[in-house]
């Protein structure tokens, strides 16, 4: 604990802004560089940083593995669901114009925001899941043996 004091304080300070920045990249993606994938990775980085500094058990309490898997599926559902909704409205799959026939441009913006949200959620959840999978493996060599 004593040796990790500075790291822990700085991590507590940084996790919030990192999550906020991820949301900024997510929802500002149409106007500036960014988008769902990058936002998802940044969102996952906050959890990974927290896990590296505070330990795997702590981060698993914050974001339990079963919830990670649910979120990974939820993102795909949002992406595919947007397409299905546009099919239901009588147009092609993922044709955003159908979402708002009176003002197609507004429909496109809304559709892109929806699918980017889906991409972001899935990427964040999968990144955290990969981290969990790597980090919870039993080490091949004991620390004492080398």
């Amino acid at each position: 604990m004593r040796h990790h004091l500075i790291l822990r304080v700085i991590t507590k300070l940084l996790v919030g802004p990192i999550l906020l920045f991820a949301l900024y990249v997510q929802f500002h993606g149409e106007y500036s560089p960014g988008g769902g994938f990058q936002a998802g990775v940044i969102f996952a980085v906050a959890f990974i940083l927290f896990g590296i500094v505070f330990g795997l058990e702590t981060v698993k309490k914050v974001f339990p593995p079963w919830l990670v898997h649910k979120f990974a599926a939820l993102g795909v559902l949002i992406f595919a669901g947007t397409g299905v909704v546009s099919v239901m409205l009588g147009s092609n799959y993922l044709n955003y114009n159908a979402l708002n026939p009176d003002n197609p441009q507004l429909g496109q913006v809304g559709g892109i925001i929806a699918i980017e949200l889906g991409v972001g959620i899935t990427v964040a959840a999968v990144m955290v899941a990969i981290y969990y999978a790597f980090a919870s493996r039993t080490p091949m060599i004991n620390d004492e043996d080398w």
Partner: protein
Amino acid sequence: MTALDWIVEIASWIAILMGSAFLIIGAIGTLRFPDFWSRVHAVSVTDSAGMLLLTLGMCIQAGFTLITVKLIIIGVFLFITGPTATHAVANAAFVSGFLPKGADKFRRVIKLADKEAKIAKKRKRSPLKGKL
């Protein structure tokens, strides 16, 4: 160009060039210094100074815009995280009992490092003493 424009240009370019000089000096120090501790020292200190000066120069160039706010946020972020990363690297080396070149003469440092290594061993962290 008015006089104010010239002042802005000159001030920002002084800051940017000084920041670049700091970073180049840090890079040369990283390559040329003999052991780990002096290299860490060279790169960490000059990195913070160079980053701050570069950000300042770009802020002056941007003027009172949203870009300046973003640059200040980036500067604060790097000002916190850079030294923290250096601390993590140096702390890991210190805990594992890695001594500076020629430090065998300084008993106190060795004693302190031994103590730290013992504490680390008690906590079941890997003491890679003398193997780095």
